[in-house]
Each structure stands twice: as C-alpha cells, then as structure tokens.
C-alpha cells in the first residue's frame, strides 16, 4: 500500500488531509474526534487577540446551493473567527498536541495589523507546542470590515509586513493563508514569499450571495430581514482554487514556495488533483461539515488505491507533475487538430449534442430522420461542448487528426509541427 505520510515544512502527518481552520477545528472536543477519525492534521479555528472574544450572529450563518437531491454543492458563511476566549483555546491546543504528537496542529491567527498585537500573541501560541502558524488574511466578511482578514490579504505590502513580524517573533513555520477575493493571486503570494513565509495556503472563502429570498426580498442567510455577503466554499469553488494554486506553482518567483491547497476538497481525487498541481497537502472544511469527520476514510483509501494503481509509492512521487503542463494560452499548439466523434453504440439519442451545437455553436452535428447523430468534420471546430453536454460519459470523444491528414474544415494538411500564437501569421506581434 502506498505511503501517505507527508512532511510539509518539516511537519509530519500520517496523511495529507488536514482540516482547515473553521468550525470543525473550533475546540478540543472536535479536534480529538477528528484525529480519532484519521485526519492527518488540523489548523485550529482562527484565534483573535486576548480580551473579550468576537461575537457571532444569533441567526443563520450559512447559506447554500444544492443539486436536485439536496447534494450540497456550495456553502457560504458569515461566521467570524473563534468566539471563545484565547486562553481556553490555547489550553485546549496544548492538551491536544500533547496527546497527538504524530498529528499536525497549526494555530490560525488573526489580530490587528499592528506589530504589538502580533508580538503579544505569538509567544503564547508557541507555548502550546503547535507545529506552526497560519495567518488568516482571507476571511472576507465581518473581520474585513475591521481591517483584518481579507482587508490585509488584498494589500501585498501588508502581507509582507505582517509575515516579517511573524518570522521575527515566532520560530516555527509560518503559513500565509490567501484570499481569493483579488484579481491576480500571484501578487499576494509573492508578497508572502518576500516576507519569508514558509508556505502559502489557499483559498479562503469567496465573497458571495448564495440566494435571494424572493418573498422577503433579501439575501440568504437572512438575519431579521437583512443579509450580508458571506464566504463561499465547497465543491463549487474547487476550479477557482485549482487555478490559483497552479498560478502560484508555475510562477517563477513562487515556484519553490510550498502550498497547502484548500477549496472544495471532497474526495481523494480532489486532493490528488491539487497535489498534482503542486500542493504539498490539502485542507478540508466543507466536506467535513457536510458529512462529518468520517469522510477522511474514503479520502485515504481512495488516494492510496489510486497511487497503487499508478505505482506511486509516496505523495512526493506525483507532487507537481501537472504543474509544468499548465501554460499560457499563447503557447498552446495551434496545429493540434481534433474532431468530435460520436460512438453510435453508446449514443442514447437524446439530441443534446445536436441542440447545443446547432443552436449555440458551429452547426457541426447532423441529425437524421431516425435520430442518428453524427459529427460533420467539415464544420467541427473541436470545441468540446458536445462532449460536455452529452449525458453518456465517453460517448463522444475528441479524436486527434493524425499528421498528414487533411482537416476537413480548413482543408489544410495537419503538419504535426508545433506552432503557437506567438509565431502565428495572424498575430501582428508575432515573433519572426
């Protein structure tokens, strides 16, 4: 069986599945149960400065979107950082770390953007013997209004500054958690790197309104007739998170920066994909909040099964393998020609490919009297829409037109030679 142990920033854990800083990691009771269930590590629910803790709303704090069978696809929340006293959290962290020395325990922190505040809390955290800290620069609601969370994460200079303070006053690994509520994720990542961060973790939640109550004319979750934007997470955000992870992994300035990937990890496959894009481990919140801590078991067995099948002995063996294949559009091979092909034996004749292509794309699918659907090679631009709308997986495939054959649409022979936009004759800026 594959070895799932990971060493992230020198922190060992039996598997790459950590619980993200959120309600699942809010207290000792939860975290002990999580470790018993098999989670490799936890990032404790974000701690605030000493003194009276923040308060949460007393009405609903989550909104959601669902599939038809109430499968939860996206969750949104307006919860703040921990609403329990710092002292209590620190005591609990100390006890838990002592009892579970083989699991990772990271302290998530969010205090005001002042050196004093960080200088004050870091030694207290160090006393817990936590394996490292994560700086919450991501929370997009509530705390951001007070100049913390994503309000910091959106200003690269602040990220660098706070990271530097942490590196100065704390001697274990410092992870900077990034907000996705920004135009180009590479800037905050570079800032964290410049501040000497040991790693970045991403994504935190995305600003969102999940639904509008059309009777009361207010967004959900609704508190006494009003609502506010909340942070979006769960399966729906994974594509956004993956792009951001890949952007950092392939940016020359941050390529060496370790990444803890977060956002929509629900099954082993999500984790494998993030790791293939360069993440050293993954963090999970919504999947645990939806199904309970038991979901980690499938993540573990599923990942090791797949690794065995592929012959990967350890996580390290496939980490980052897909990162180098993420490139810019301009470098894609314009001489690579494919055509959709409908496998008639699998086709159930629903006509969706036809409706999609005929109404919205390139009129490249023919429909006969007796509902036989076939691709017109002379029209097909290989956009892949039919593949995506076909309800039968694998029924429509994209077949490469081999070198030397004529592309029926353009009438040109497929050269087989790599050629991209940078040298394309239509490109006014083309390099000679």
């Amino acid at each position, binding site marked *: 069986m594959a070895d799932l142990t990971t060493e992230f920033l020198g922190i060992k854990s039996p598997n790459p599945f950590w619980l993200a800083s959120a309600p699942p990691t809010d207290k000792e009771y939860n975290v002990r149960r999580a470790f018993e269930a098999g989670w490799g590590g936890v990032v404790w629910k974000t701690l605030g400065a000493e003194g009276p803790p923040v308060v949460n709303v007393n009405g609903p704090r989550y909104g959601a979107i669902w599939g*038809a069978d109430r499968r939860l696809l996206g969750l949104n929340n307006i919860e703040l950082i921990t609403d329990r006293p710092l002292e209590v959290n620190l005591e609990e962290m100390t006890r838990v770390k002592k009892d579970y020395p083989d699991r990772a325990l990271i302290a998530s922190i969010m205090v005001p953007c002042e050196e004093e505040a960080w200088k004050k809390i870091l030694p207290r955290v160090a006393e817990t013997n936590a394996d490292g800290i994560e700086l919450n620069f991501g929370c997009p609601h509530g705390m951001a209004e007070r100049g913390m969370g994503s309000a910091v994460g959106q200003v690269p200079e602040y990220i660098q500054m706070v990271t530097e303070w942490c590196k100065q006053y704390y001697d274990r690994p410092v992870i900077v958690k990034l907000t996705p509520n920004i135009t180009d994720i590479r800037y905050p990542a570079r800032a964290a790197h410049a501040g000497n961060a040991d790693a970045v973790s991403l994504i935190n939640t995305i600003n969102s309104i999940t639904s509008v109550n059309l009777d009361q004319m207010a967004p959900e979750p609704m508190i006494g007739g009003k609502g506010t934007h909340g942070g979006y997470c769960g399966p729906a955000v994974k594509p956004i998170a993956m792009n951001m992870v890949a952007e950092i992994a392939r940016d020359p300035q941050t390529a060496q920066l370790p990444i803890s990937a977060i956002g929509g990890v629900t099954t082993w496959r999500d984790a494998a994909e993030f790791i293939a894009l360069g993440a050293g481990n993954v963090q999970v919140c919504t999947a645990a909040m939806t199904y309970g801590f038991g979901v980690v078991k499938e993540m573990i067995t599923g990942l090791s099964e797949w690794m065995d099948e592929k012959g990967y002995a350890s996580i390290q063996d496939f980490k980052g393998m897909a990162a180098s294949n993420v490139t810019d559009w301009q470098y894609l091979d314009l001489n690579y020609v494919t055509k959709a092909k409908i496998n008639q034996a699998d086709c159930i004749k*629903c*006509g*969706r490919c036809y*409706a999609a292509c005929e109404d919205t794309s390139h009129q490249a699918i023919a429909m006969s009297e007796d*509902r036989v659907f076939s691709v017109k090679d002379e029209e097909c631009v290989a956009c892949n829409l039919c593949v995506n709308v076909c309800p039968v997986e694998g029924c429509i495939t994209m077949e490469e037109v081999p070198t030397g054959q004529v592309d029926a649409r353009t009438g040109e022979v497929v050269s087989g030679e790599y050629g991209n936009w940078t040298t394309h004759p239509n490109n006014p800026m083309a390099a000679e």
Partner: protein
Amino acid sequence: MAHSHQASGIQAGRLTADDIATNFEDLHHPFDAHEAAVAADRCYFCFDAPCMQACPTSIDIPQFIREIQGGQPTAAAKTILEQNILGGMCARVCPTETLCEEVCVRETAEGKPVEIGRLQRFATDTLMEKGVHPFTRDATTGKKVAVVGAGPAGLSAAHRLAMKGHDVVVFEHKSKAGGLNEFGIAAYKSTNEFAAREVAWLMQIGGITIEYDKGFGKGLTLDGLKADYDAVFLSIGLAGVNTLRAAGEDKDGVRDAVDFIEDVRQADELSALPVGRNVVVIGGGMTAVDAAVQSKLLGAENVTIAYRRGRDAMGASRFEQDLAASKGVKLMFNVMPREILGNGASAEIELEYTQVVDGRVTGTGETTRLAADQVFKAIGQTLEGAPQGLALVGGKIQVSDTGRTSVDGVWAGGDCASGGEDLTVTAVAEGRDAAMDIHASLMG
C-alpha cells in the same frame, strides 16, 4: 362474520374493510416535492424529444419537467393541460410503459425511464389542489355544439369548444359524467373520487351543460341534434360487449367484466361487494387484468386469467401482466373456454388448449378444468347505440384525421371512432382535435 378467502361461492367481506382499503390504495404513491425534484432531474431535456412524440396528446414533456425542476409545478401543469385537459387522469391511467416512458432515452439506455407519468401527476395534482382553473373562455360565438357521451373524448371536446367560445351541451346516458374514467378504470388508479373531481374542475371553464340520462335511445336522434345545433360530436364509447360463444354462458356467476368493474368503482363500501372464491377471467386486455386484480384485492382465493393466445399477443402490457402476477393472479396462455359447468350457477369451467395456426386460434382438443364460481368475460367491447346512417369501418364510426364522420356536421372521437388505440389519452386527443376542426369549420 368471519373473513375468509375460502368461503365458498360468491361472497362479500372476504377481507376486513381495512385490508380492502389498503389493497385499493394508489397503485403508485404520489411524489412529494423532493421526490419530484429528484425524478425531474433525471430528464435530459432531449431535443425533439421521443417521449413527446409518443404521447398521443403531444404534451411538451421536457418543458413541463423542466418547469418542475425550476420549482414551478403549476406552470408545468399548464403546459400539460394545454395539450391534454385530462392530464390528471392520464397521469394515473396511461400505460406509460407502452407510450412516453417506453421511448424515453433513459429507458433505452438504462431500462429505467424518467417517471413521466408520476411527474405529470405531481404537476396536475398541485394545480388542482389549488382549485384553480387555468383557462378562460374566448368571447362567445353564439354557436351551439352538441356532444353525445361524457367520457374522456366528449369532455375533452366540450372543454376545448367552450374555451373557443361556443356553447356546449353534453348528453350523457348515465347519471354521472366521466365515462370509463368514472366506471371502468381500475379503482387503484383513480382513488378518492378523482374522476368526479376532475370533471367538476374541468367544468369550471363555463359554457358547458351536461344533460344526464339522455342520449341515443333516450330521447335523442341525430337528425334532431343536427337541426338544433351547429355541430355534433359523438363520443359514445363502446357500450356493447362480445359474447363468449361457450356453452353455459347463461349460468349464474357469469358476467361481463366491465359490469363487475363498474360495481367496484361505484361501491360505497368495497367490503360489501361480493366476489367469488374461484374467479376465472376470460380475455387478455386491460379489462381482463383489471377485473382479475380487483377480484384478488377483494379477497378471492384463486384468480386466473385465461387467454387464448400467447403472452406476447396479450393486449395488456408486460407491466400489467406483472402487476397481476404480483397480486397473485395466475396467467394462463393458449386456452379458450369450452363450457361453463354447474347446476344453475357456475362451478367449473372447461378450457381447451389452443394453438395459433396462420394467425388463427384453433383448439388442440386437449382440455382442462378449473373451479370457477365466478367467470368474467373480458373479450372486448363493441359499438352499440350509434345512430343510423354513419359509415362504419371495422365496427367503429369511420372518421377522418380530425374526426369528421361521413355525415356533414357530425364529428366523432374516442373508442367509438376508428383510428387510434382505445385509451383515455387517445380519446382526449381525438376530442381535442375534433373540437379544433369544429371550431375552424364553424368560424370559417
């Protein structure tokens, strides 16, 4: 009184009233909103959907299912009812396994179609429970149309004609409307007086009067109607039944299945309805299955359907055959009745095995006997009471695609007319189409 399957002869109360009530509950329990959402999600919204083509009333099925997906079952109901005003009944009684669901691409792909019928019921029930009638009448045209027979065909035509602004008088032989919806459809398909409720709901359109206990043979003539009305629509169904032509057919205990079913449908208290201990049903269609299953549900000990051809030739669909079998009905194929034996009342039936030679059924000479204190004849209905002077074809009133008969100003549809299968949904389609043609010719 003790309840017993084994009580001899034809007896009431073979089961407790509670057991009988349970037995006659909805064949398919209705969807709740969540089940409907999940079932609707399975629909692929096919292009030029095969299901829609297979529906005799051409309901836009992907459209109404999408409206359910969107959380608007009432909008879905309107989509259904625009095409099929008895969409509520059809949702319950259509043999979907041989219509829309048979050709659903998910049936072809996985053997598990989108449950169109139950979704249709969910939509129409939601609308009808709100008590609203979604259609309004056009300005009155001053034209009068007579409809003879208040079954599905007649009601469908009447509604469409009234909607188009004509004044409609429906003449009905019986003292209740609905035709076989009220008197023929199996009780577990139309529970809680649905047929009557649906008629009352349909009548909300206005402009329709039903005159009961009137019809051909009860004071009406076609010439009289033609003189008094601008157009006439005939929808008198098939009031006659075929005879067995077996010896002993006149013995007590031998009766038409449709009469028995009518008793079941009209019974105030099913546990008071007598049924035999040993019941034999002769026939192979929907009527045979319904008579057999309902006998069993009333507590008959042994119920056998005796059909003279093989399984594949049976009019009842495979689903209905399996339904019968699941209720404990025995299906016998390739047997025909020779004689009903018994002293005054039926006690036994002698069946002869058959073979089909060149499409014709002939006896093999080998016989067998079954105990039979009740024998139901379900070997087909025939046109009866149709006015003279109409051209017939295959024993039915000859009609064009839009229901025109050989007599000017007279249209016909439903079971009494040629063309189409004898189904509720076909009757609705034919009534609607004839109404549109009547409208066009009156306004033309």
